[in-house]
């Protein structure tokens, strides 16, 4: 498990890339297409990103996890277990639904939704938590801990822990606990203990800090069930592995339904786990344009956003080197988004690499744009999306309009896939507040400040 230093970014042979990286610059537009496969990147490094920027106390646990994961991947019993849970517990394969009325607003291209919202627990998160909880069992660990923002990953972790008979502790910012009291109740119903985090900015990043402190102290019996494709190696590659099923299904389904590959694939990006899952299926298909949509919050010019790749600079946080929202001193800047699931100042290292080589294009979507797309999908398709996923929908509208502008006559032949990463039941109160649907004296209106995530 000892990794060679020559793998480290600063010791690599590509001096110019390293220099550019260190100075926060971005390398030249790539030649990307036709190069070696981008699929199944094993880590620990994705170009100059990734690695293990972690306390020595946790390295043995990361080594153990890496070793267990590598052996499990090669074990037919494990892969069969995952396939069985995906099919008979989560409800996979998730549907690929054509959104014809929605597509009328996207330049008239064809739009297909990858329906991760139909999975058990209502989002893509279940793919990863089942995989990691099984690995925890393989390591003989009896306790899992997790961080959560709005509560989606916490609920998914509590679900997997209940299913597999593991103790579960979820760290959640104290403010988030207040705003998401129903999700706290869901986790508790599932048998988990929710610990409000009052340190630092009391947000998702502080919940991760507190989970890491717990992990250092309890690593003997505890697995840290990280919820996104970020963190120290092997987390980014491992979380991606459990989500690759999204892209594999989507690719086969679009070929089956349309007879060809899509022109574009769109997903929203916080840490980037749903995105890397669907992107992976298409990374080597040179004709497919891939787009990641970050949370632009109130607008990237306002400073109140979570557009990490768009505006961040490379740095290290929570174990990985990646783009990061930080000030001139390297202190992490608080992110802002109406979508709690995208409200994170970091991003998975593989996304930073895919951005630098130009294989994936990352763009910000504002709160307003996302909410308009949210309303549009509700009213044109009868599907209430998660506000996270609404960022991907808003991006798909732009992509569709661009494709149509390139060749108006052929718009109806263009195909765009959107990863609908989650359902919006959890977001009804936020949306009701946003669209001013609440009675002034309703309990929700009382809890919420203007536009606040509930």
């Amino acid at each position: 498990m000892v990794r060679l230093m020559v793998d480290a970014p600063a010791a690599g042979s590509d001096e110019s890339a390293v220099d550019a990286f260190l100075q926060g610059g971005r390398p030249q537009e790539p030649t990307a297409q036709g190069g070696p496969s981008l699929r199944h990147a094993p880590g620990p490094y994705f170009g100059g990103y990734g690695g293990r920027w972690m306390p020595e106390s946790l390295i043995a646990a990361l080594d153990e996890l890496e070793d267990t994961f590598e052996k499990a991947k090669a074990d037919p019993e494990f892969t069969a277990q995952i396939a069985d849970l995906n099919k008979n517990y989560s409800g996979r394969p998730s549907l690929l639904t054509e959104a014809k009325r929605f597509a009328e607003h996207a330049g008239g291209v064809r739009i297909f939704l990858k329906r991760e919202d139909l999975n058990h627990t209502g989002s893509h998160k279940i793919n990863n938590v089942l995989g990691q909880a099984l690995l925890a069992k393989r390591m003989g660990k009896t306790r899992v801990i997790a961080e959560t923002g709005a509560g989606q990953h916490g609920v998914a972790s509590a679900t997997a822990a209940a299913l597999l008979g593991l103790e579960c502790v979820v760290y959640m910012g104290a403010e988030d606990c207040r705003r998401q009291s129903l999700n706290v109740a869901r986790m508790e119903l599932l048998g988990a203990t929710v610990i409000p985090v009052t340190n630092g900015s009391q947000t998702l990043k502080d919940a991760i800090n507190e989970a890491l402190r717990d992990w250092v102290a309890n690593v003997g019996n505890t697995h840290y069930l990280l919820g996104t494709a970020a963190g120290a190696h092997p987390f980014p590659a491992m979380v991606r592995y459990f989500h690759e099923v999204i892209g594999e299904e989507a690719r086969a389904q679009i070929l089956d339904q349309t007879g060809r590959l899509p022109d574009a694939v769109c997903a929203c990006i916080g840490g980037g786990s749903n995105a890397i899952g669907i992107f992976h299926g298409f990374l080597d298909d040179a004709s497919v344009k891939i787009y990641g949509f970050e949370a632009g919050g109130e607008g990237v010019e306002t400073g109140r956003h979570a557009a990490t790749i768009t505006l961040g600079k490379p740095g290290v946080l929570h174990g990985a080197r990646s783009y990061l929202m930080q000030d001139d001193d390297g202190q992490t800047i608080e992110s802002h988004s109406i979508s709690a699931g995208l409200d994170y100042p970091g991003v998975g290292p593989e996304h930073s690499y895919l951005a630098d080589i130009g294989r994936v294009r990352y763009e910000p979507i504002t709160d307003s744009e996302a909410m308009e797309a949210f309303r549009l999908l509700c009213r044109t398709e009868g599907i209430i999306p998660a506000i996270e996923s609404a960022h991907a929908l808003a991006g798909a509208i732009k992509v569709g309009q661009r494709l149509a502008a390139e060749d108006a006559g052929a718009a109806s032949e263009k195909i765009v896939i959107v990863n609908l990463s989650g359902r919006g039941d959890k977001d009804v109160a936020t949306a009701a507040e946003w669209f001013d649907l609440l009675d002034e004296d309703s309990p929700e209106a009382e809890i919420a400040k203007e536009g606040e995530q509930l």
Partner: protein
Amino acid sequence: MSTSQDGTQNAAQHASKSAAAIDRARAQGRAALIGYLPAGYPSVADTIAAGIALAENGADLIEIGIPYSDPVMDGQVIQAATTEALAKGFRVPEVFDVVRGITSKTDAAVLVMTYWNPVVRMGVDEFSRRLAEAGGAGLITPDLIPDEAAEWMAASDKYGLDRVFLVAPSSSPERMKRTVDASRGFVYAVSIMGVTGARASVSSAAKSVVAAAHAAGAERVCVGLGVSNAGHVREIAEYADGVIVGTALVAAIRDGGVDAVASLTKDLSTGLTKEEA
């Protein structure tokens, strides 16, 4: 690393301020005392005054921590102090003022303890150059492992700085050897699997971590995490080359200012003499 181990090792033997400070204590038949203070808490001037008080009352080495937004290895007391320092506007370059303020008035070796991102942001070479100029001895890096330290290895060689990596009860023999080999000045032995903070007793794991580090070739091993009183110091001084106290000193400056740091340091130093030495 492909850097010339022989050359740097030799240079280091002469250059290491931390090693020299530990060796001076050893020559007096005792372990070294290392005290931690977060920069800018409650003010930059107070940190300098408290650092001088540490040195004048028995500390051989001083660690100055850089307040950071995401201190995953710190417990409540240090988190509260560094959060307050940041809220009051502490800026990273002020750490060099603190180092210079202490080294200009005392003989103590002054190291900076920092999470890695502030160093990355300033530039590892630039940070190292400024630290050396300020008279600093080197860096203690709680979230940087030798595997990721290629740039820091080069910069610390270039500016003659000590690089203090951590070893833990969970470190495998291979990692122990690798970390000891990469370190200069001393090796920081984490006494317990956990974060900083006072504890009632010293973990029994500490002794075996120190033994493993010595066996891996470390000449100087210092123990930190959970060390808060003279009794703890006495226990650790029996087998380690230095004893690191953090949270207790931070609580002292919080509750009683510089005077409280001075008297706690005086008390802690009574535990340093090896009884059978």
